[in-house]
């Protein structure tokens, strides 16, 4: 058994960067800049269409405008968690740092999009029901699942060597994604006894024309936004790991130099 050292982070991957970085590291590249521009233009178009240009719904009224954001955020969040699960399986198989950090980055964004979903769902509830929270099945499911993934992120916060952290979080990533359909079913049946106006369910907005276009635009824009953020988040995570490695190497070199000074100057390797 290796003794893990919380400060030095034992278990460093063998191929970790050893050359010092030249210049300030950046997470931007041509691809992310293109994605960024598309996202910003898309969001501007979505706001214009969703808030001003589309007509109000016959049944839902102006609250349909919240759906243009609600549906994309919740769909993106689920996609993020599926990506986390796939990356977790890949990590247990390949054991590379890439999959571990990829899973973590995706989960973090998933929680963010879930939080947005709950927020815009609550705004919809305040207008429709007069209260922020009712035990509407979809919102309830979202809240429970979000807490599951908050646990995942909490595990990653604990200092540990990378292999332990990777394995444990991969196991959680897989356990949690399987829970999504089961929780869905359970909450549906649980609330099945008291059916009420849901954010999309009993009242299925009959969208057409510009409304339908805006709905799909929203979905596309949020997917691009997710891809953009995911790449950046992953690169930040990667650089953070490298920075930790470099910090440790520098500290070791310093100590060696200190020891070497009394006997022969500059003997540190």
């Amino acid at each position: 058994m290796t003794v893990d050292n919380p400060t030095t982070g034992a278990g460093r991957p063998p191929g970790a960067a050893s050359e010092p970085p030249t210049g300030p590291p950046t997470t931007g590249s041509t691809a992310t800049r293109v994605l960024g521009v598309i996202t910003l233009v898309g969001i501007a178009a979505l706001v214009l269409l969703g808030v001003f240009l589309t007509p109000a719904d016959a049944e839902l009224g102006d609250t349909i405008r919240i759906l243009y954001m609600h549906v994309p955020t919740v769909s993106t969040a689920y996609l993020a968690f599926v990506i986390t699960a796939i990356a977790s399986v890949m990590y247990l198989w390949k054991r590379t740092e890439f999959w571990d950090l990829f899973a973590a980055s995706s989960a973090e964004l998933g929680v963010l999009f879930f939080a947005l979903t709950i927020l815009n769902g609550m705004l919809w509830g305040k207008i429709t029901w007069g209260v922020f929270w009712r035990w509407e099945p979809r919102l309830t499911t979202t809240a429970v699942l979000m807490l599951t993934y908050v646990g995942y992120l909490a595990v990653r916060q604990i200092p540990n060597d990378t292999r332990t952290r990777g394995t444990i979080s991969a196991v959680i990533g897989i356990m949690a994604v399987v829970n999504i359909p089961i929780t869905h079913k359970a909450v549906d049946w649980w609330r099945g006894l008291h059916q009420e106006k849901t954010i999309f369910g009993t009242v299925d907005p009959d969208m057409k024309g510009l409304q339908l276009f805006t709905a799909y635009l929203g979905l596309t824009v949020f997917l691009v936004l997710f891809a953009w953020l995911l790449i950046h988040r992953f690169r930040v995570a990667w650089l953070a790991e490298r920075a930790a490695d470099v910090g440790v190497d520098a500290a070791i070199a310093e100590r060696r130099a200190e020891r070497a000074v009394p006997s022969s100057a500059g003997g540190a390797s």
Partner: protein
Amino acid sequence: MRDAVLVMTKDLRLEWRSKVGIGQVLPFSLLVVLLFAFALDPERGVLDRVTSGLFWVVVLFSSVLMIERAFSVEAADGIFDALRLSGLAPAAIYAGKVAALAVQLLAVEAVLAVAVAVFYDTTFRTPVLTVGVALVATVGIAAAGAVYGALAARLRSGTTLLPLLLLPLLAPVLIGATRGFEVALGREAGPGWPWVALLGIFAVVYLTLGALLFRPLLEDA
């Protein structure tokens, strides 16, 4: 299979000798039954209406304590490494842990059921459904709990993290078991067996996942 029985009997013998479950978890669960009576005025009939929910919330809390205990004994003195070197199949160790946990949980539930019957004046109308729900729900709790217990034991602040990790995952179990009990108590009309089926799916899915994931947890974490 023999390995699983070996691990299970080891765990149960350990429990029998240390009496942590009987001496600590069981009194705790009875205490919560009393606390609920203080919190929800027994005269207003609230207790009567929420009995099945309270029952399962108490079971969930007790299960967290039990799972924590079941794996902290393995974490001490490098026993994890000993288990790893013992040549037992990880899936068998997992099955043994789940079985031991399920047996202990069922014992707690049996005592709790008597306590609820006495203190909250509850009658279980359909005993078959009651036992069915309890059995399947308990296997589900143990199946997911054993995985999370094993990984929490490897983490520095695992004890405080375990409830956060485990309880959201067990939300479907709480829903299914509570509703199933509601039917068994005659509070709610309608068939109770769909809930047993839901609980069964949960149990099977997590038993399978646990058996697969226990090897990386044991060997690489």
